[in-house]
């Protein structure tokens, strides 16, 4: 991999730089992302802790359920299945919410932390472009956290099912309802789709904004990220008595318009029609705004030194 040093001609002209020995961009990207995971172990530890706490709570509820199985739950009742379906949703929501919070704090610190601890001087001494660095940092909330929370959620739900089945075996609770009512595959598919589209694509401008603030803020990136939207919304309300800014924020934070649920027996698969999502203009303007924020963050990283 290394050019033998004596192979370089003794009299090399300054007008012809040494032919660059290349490392493929994919390899640089791979190591940059791994670097992020080394530094921020909270990316996977925090969602795992959330999953662990959830499993513990679930275990307690199942033990309770078993004790009262004779009185509270009649054999074959659908109530147990309903309770479990609720638990799945809570598990998914808990892990997704945790991952979202991790993503926000990660993005805010991503380009600020390296300036604060001066390590940016080390990273910049290596042949890694600012674009690669910023994109590798964007990868974490944009791709890694959604996929990770999907994997952890599915694993948690599976463990939950196994645990409950083992504990409730012979208690009279209808176990088959657990497995069929859960429709494991459908739920997982909807979850993955939701994570990739909403947490990845729809929230992209939010991550872009956080990275931009992180690249720019002289101190307190958290304040710089959250104060301007509040101030602008407040000023708008006072000056014009309108709420466009607030509506815009709500629109972005609440996620894209989902198709109306059709009663309790709604078809999960209806969520999965990409047409509903990809035809929303909000998605594309969001992506454009995210691209602008990220481009600005790349440019800023070039100018910013340690603070």
């Amino acid at each position: 991999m290394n050019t033998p040093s004596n192979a370089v001609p003794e009299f090399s002209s300054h007008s012809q730089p040494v032919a660059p020995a290349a490392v493929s961009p994919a390899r640089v990207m791979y190591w940059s992302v791994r670097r992020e995971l080394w530094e921020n172990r909270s990316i996977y530890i925090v969602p795992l802790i959330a999953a662990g706490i959830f499993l513990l709570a679930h275990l307690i509820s199942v033990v309770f359920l078993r004790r009262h199985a004779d009185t509270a739950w009649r054999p074959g009742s659908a109530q147990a299945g309903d309770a479990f379906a609720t638990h799945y949703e809570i598990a998914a929501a808990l892990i997704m919410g945790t991952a979202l919070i991790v993503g926000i704090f990660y993005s805010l610190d991503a380009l600020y932390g390296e300036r604060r601890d001066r390590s940016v001087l080390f990273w910049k001494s290596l042949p890694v472009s600012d674009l690669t660095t910023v994109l590798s940092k964007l990868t974490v909330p944009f791709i890694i956290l959604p996929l990770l929370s999907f994997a952890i959620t599915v694993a948690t739900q599976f463990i939950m099912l196994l645990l409950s089945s083992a504990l409730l075996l012979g208690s009279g609770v209808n176990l088959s309802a657990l497995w069929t009512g859960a429709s494991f595959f459908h739920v997982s598919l909807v979850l993955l789709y939701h994570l990739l589209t909403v947490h990845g694509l729809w929230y992209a401008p939010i991550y872009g904004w956080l990275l931009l603030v992180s690249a720019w803020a002289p101190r307190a990136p958290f304040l710089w990220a959250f104060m301007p939207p509040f101030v602008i919304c407040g000023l708008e309300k006072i000056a014009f008595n309108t709420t466009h800014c607030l509506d815009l924020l709500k629109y972005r934070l609440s996620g894209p318009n989902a198709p109306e649920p059709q009663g309790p027996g709604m078809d999960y698969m209806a969520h999965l029609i990409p047409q509903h999502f990809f035809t929303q203009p909000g998605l594309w303007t969001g992506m454009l705004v995210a691209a602008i924020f990220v481009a600005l963050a790349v440019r800023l990283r070039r100018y910013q030194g340690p603070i």
Partner: protein
Amino acid sequence: MASVIEAHHLRKVYGTTVALDGIDLHVEEGRILGLIGPNGAGKTTALNAILGLIPYEGQLKVLGRDPWKERDELMRDVSFIADVAVLPRWLRVSQALDYVEGVHPRFDRAKAEGFLSKTTIQRGSRVRELSKGMVAQLHLALIMAIDARLLVLDEPTLGLDILYRKQFYDSLLNDYFDGRRTIIVSTHQVEELQHILTDLMFIDRGRIVLSCSMEECESRYMEVMVRPEQVAAARALRPISERQVLGRNILLFDHADRQQLAALGDVRTPGIADLFVAVIGNHASGSVGAAK
């Protein structure tokens, strides 16, 4: 000889402060240049411009590239230690090796492992667990394992004790420098550097005050410990500085006749530190006088 750095009217202004006042710089391959100046003289600014860390005015080519526009490409051939203790505190030694091996095309892992095996640094340690001297050793091991053409060191030994400082420069000279690489080092601890430099550059308030090779310096500047009865005669030869050590007067001359000086006392080559104090001191008082 191929030129490694070519700067023309290099200028950098921060707000109203002129950090670099249009300097010209020409560094050839195979030199070890010491960049010496008081705090705030513009040393770090000059080095940062060379490394593509800050934008600048004027022309600057490093290994034929524009550092500001092509920093990442340039960093394949240029290594730098910008400051002591810039390695992130969470990084493990093994991770540092993995990462640099992963992203740097000219990194020789075996070499870095070899340097590290001479130290007491454990592979599993995090940077925060290492002493300041060990962090410097680790950083140097990483940098020396990169087959770069230009190495820039900005105050690389600040805050290290004398043993580490000596070891640092010894390994740099013995295990890294091969006569074809170029090294630029800025430091305050000039005495320890004296014997490894080939070129010397004094910089003060954004301007180059003195630039010469060590041989030129040695033939140009002479220091005489003057016998008491001949002090007046020596002063008549217009020394650039005079100081007293243990009651003896030591006068420093620029471009003087060695024979003539030998008649006044013991002639020797001045240390860089004394030369620095004399030249920078004169530069400061000279410009104050000019301002009046």
